[in-house]
Structures are given as structure tokens and as C-alpha cells.
């Protein structure tokens, strides 16, 4: 089947089989900023914004994705200028091997879009579905807290 998607603001049409995952469709068509980890919704590496909410793209069937609006981590910096969340991840050293980072940034974006002044508990809850096997989460929480402050205009990048 042919599925239509708006990806990072661009209308796209791809050939897909109805039962394959949005993750596989995206990566096959060059969106390799979306990482493939477990494939069963456990690790969060494949997170994208799907119709405005962060989801595991490995759990979205192509049939369901048809007509959806998708934002990947690359879509947060369309002209190459990093989003405050991406910059904060760099500044706070929240990236080690980097494999979890796209998904983690997308989850943070979903949270901060709705609540740019979250408590640490709310930050931890928001990234509960994103597994990082390197850094231990402290630096990511620091980065998301800092990004929130930047987005509120209370801190500089």
C-alpha cells in the first residue's frame, strides 16, 4: 500500500506493507535519526512525535501511520540550528554513546511542549520509556531541566 505522511513538515508518500512498523518505513526511506533498538516498545530509541505525542515508532503499524504527522529528532533542527533541548543535552554531557538520545530528546520535547516547568519527578516519568545504558539518567534529567528553563526564558543557551 502507499502511505502518506507529513514528516518534519514535508509531505511524503512511501510504499509500505500494512503490517510493518512505522520505524522500518522511516529508516528504509532515509530517516536514520530514528534508531532501532528492541523493536517491541521497551527501549524508546525509536521514539518519534506522532500526531503531536511521543510514541514508540516500532509499535505503530504502517496502516495506522497513514495520514499522520511525524516529527523525528532531526526535525527539531531543520535549518541546522539545534533546538534548546538538543543544545542542553550537549551542554550537560547527557550524551555518551548517543543511541538513546534521539528518543530521549523526543520524549523531552513532548513533555516540555505541554509543561515547560516540570518537576524532576515529572521529567523522570516522561523519560521512563527511554532506556540509557551509559549515563544513568542524571545528566539527561539535568539537561531537560535546563532546556525547560531556556524555553521559559529563564536561562541562556
Amino acid at each position, binding site marked *: *500500500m502507499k502511505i502518506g505522511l507529513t514528516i518534519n513538515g514535508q509531505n511524503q508518500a512511501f510504499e509500505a*506493507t*500494512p*503490517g*510493518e*512498523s512505522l520505524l*522500518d518505513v522511516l529508516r528504509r526511506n532515509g530517516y536514520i535519526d530514528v534508531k532501532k533498538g528492541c523493536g*517491541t*516498545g*521497551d527501549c*524508546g530509541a525509536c*521514539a518519534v512525535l*506522532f500526531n503531536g*505525542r*511521543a*510514541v*514508540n515508532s*516500532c*509499535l*505503530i*503499524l504502517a*496502516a*495506522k501511520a*497513514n495520514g499522520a504527522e511525524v516529527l523525528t529528532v532531526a526535525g527539531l533542527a531543520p535549518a541546522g540550528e539545534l533546538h534548546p533541548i538538543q543544545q542542553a543535552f550537549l551542554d550537560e554531557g547527557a550524551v555518551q554513546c548517543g543511541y538513546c538520545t534521539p*528518543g530521549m530528546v523526543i*520524549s523531552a520535547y*513532548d513533555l516540555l511542549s505541554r509543561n515547560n516547568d516540570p518537576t524532576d519527578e515529572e521529567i523522570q*516519568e*516522561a523519560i*521512563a*520509556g*527511554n532506556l540509557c545504558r551509559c549515563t544513568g539518567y542524571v545528566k539527561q534529567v539535568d539537561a531537560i531541566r535546563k532546556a525547560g528553563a531556556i524555553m521559559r526564558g529563564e536561562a541562556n543557551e
Partner: protein
Amino acid sequence: MALEHVKAVIRPSGLDQAWEEKQKLGRQARFLGGGVDLAVFAPSSIEALIDLRDLGLSTIAFDEGEMIIGATATMAEIMESPEAGRCGGGLLVDVLRQVASPLQRNIATFGGTLGSAHPWSDVIPALLVLDARIGVFDGAARVVSTEEYLAGRRERMAPLVTSVRIPSEPALGASFITFGRSAFDVGILNCACAVAQEEDRLKRVRIAVGGTPALARRLKRTEQAIEGSSLDSIPFTEIDPTVADEIDVRDDRRASAAYRRTLACVAVRRGIQKAVERMNGGRT
């Protein structure tokens, strides 16, 4: 890829058409709402998906003392709805916060939960103790109790779930406990409890235990044993044998039946205590 044989996606415009397609295609077709369960657990024999997106099943409303949750509303939407926190002593939000991760709750639905009815479901025990009713369609629209729905789906082709209806009951005290090895792991056992109060006595006691590894069901003899107890002297020691006798436990790779039987007594005790505390305004 589990669903490699899917060739057709049908987008019905009404419930009648959705049900007709399902009857025509039988086990080779599955309804597609959130799709989480299909993506992970569906058998590879499935050849068609019946996409429910055009059926208007994603609304959340409050009507005549009931919260009416459309079958394709996501768990995140349910948690964020203003009605959910007030409903059933706040149990719904408590349970959903413990279901999988935020990423999954942005996709998963009650329709999928009830359609698959996995024994480890954390939502189903909560629906049982909240006296939730299930809106279904199998050629005609009906509303049945959660118990009736669960019993019926084992006997014949499961109806299409259209809604979940939860009575408001703001005075209810309710609790949910799950025992697992990690936050995301399927629980070794889960337990939902709900109680109400008349003067200083407990009434409307509901206890449901699941993941044993059998599908959740109510412990009705235990409920009766607690019903009418004074709030400050619930006879837990006397009730333990009833729980142990009534519960349907088996061995599996997660835990032994004996361990689950012991755990169930602990879960019921803690669950009822927590529900009573919450009914009286205390949070644990």
C-alpha cells in the same frame, strides 16, 4: 515482522460495516485501534486489518454519573482528562500511571486491552472493582458488565469493544498494587481493591486479583467476608485462608503457585488497608 501477511486494510465508516467485515474474514482479520498489541503479539496468520479510526470511538465524556471512554481513546488521553482523577476514587489514573511507559500510553487503548485481555493486564482488575461496564457491538449495540464481557469473549467471537463506562462514585476508596521484578516487567500478581463506607462499616467491597497467571477475577467470598467489617478491625487473619482458597494460581516462569498464594494474601491485606485510608482522605 509479525504481520507480514497482511494484505488488506479496511476502513469501515460505521459499526455495522466493521462487524460485517470481521464476520466475513473471521480470525484472519483483526480490529486496529492503537495497534500496540497487534505490533507485538499478533499471529503472523493475520491477513486483514479493520481500521477503526473513522468510527468516532476516541471520545471521552461524562454523562449521568458515568465516565464514558471511547475504545480508541489512548491511555494518555484518559489520564489527562479532568474526569479521570475524580472517577472511582482516582484508581483509574493510579493504575494507568503504572501501565508500561508514557511512550506506550500515548498509543495503547482500553479497546486493545479488552480485546486482547492478557492475563497480566493491570487495567482489567481495576475495571472489575470499579464496576465498569463495557459497550460492545456484535451486530447490535449492548452494554455488559466487565465480568460478562470477559466470560463471553472466551465462548464465541469476541464482540467489538466500543466504550468503557465507569461509574463516578467519588466517595469510593480504591487501590492498586502490582508485584513485579522491575517497573516495566509483567507483574507476578496484581490486585485492585475498592470499598465504600456506611457509618463505620465497610460496604461495596470489591477485590480483583490478576496475573496469577490467570486473567483477573473478583474474589467474591473474600469480599463477603470483609463486607460489614468495622473500619478499624478488619479480620485479615481470618480472611487469609479464604483468599488462599479462592484464588486461581499456577506455577509459571515468573513465580510458583505457592508464592503467589502467599503474595495474594499480602496484596489483599495491603490493598484493602490502602483503599480504606484513601476513602478517609489519606494518601499512602
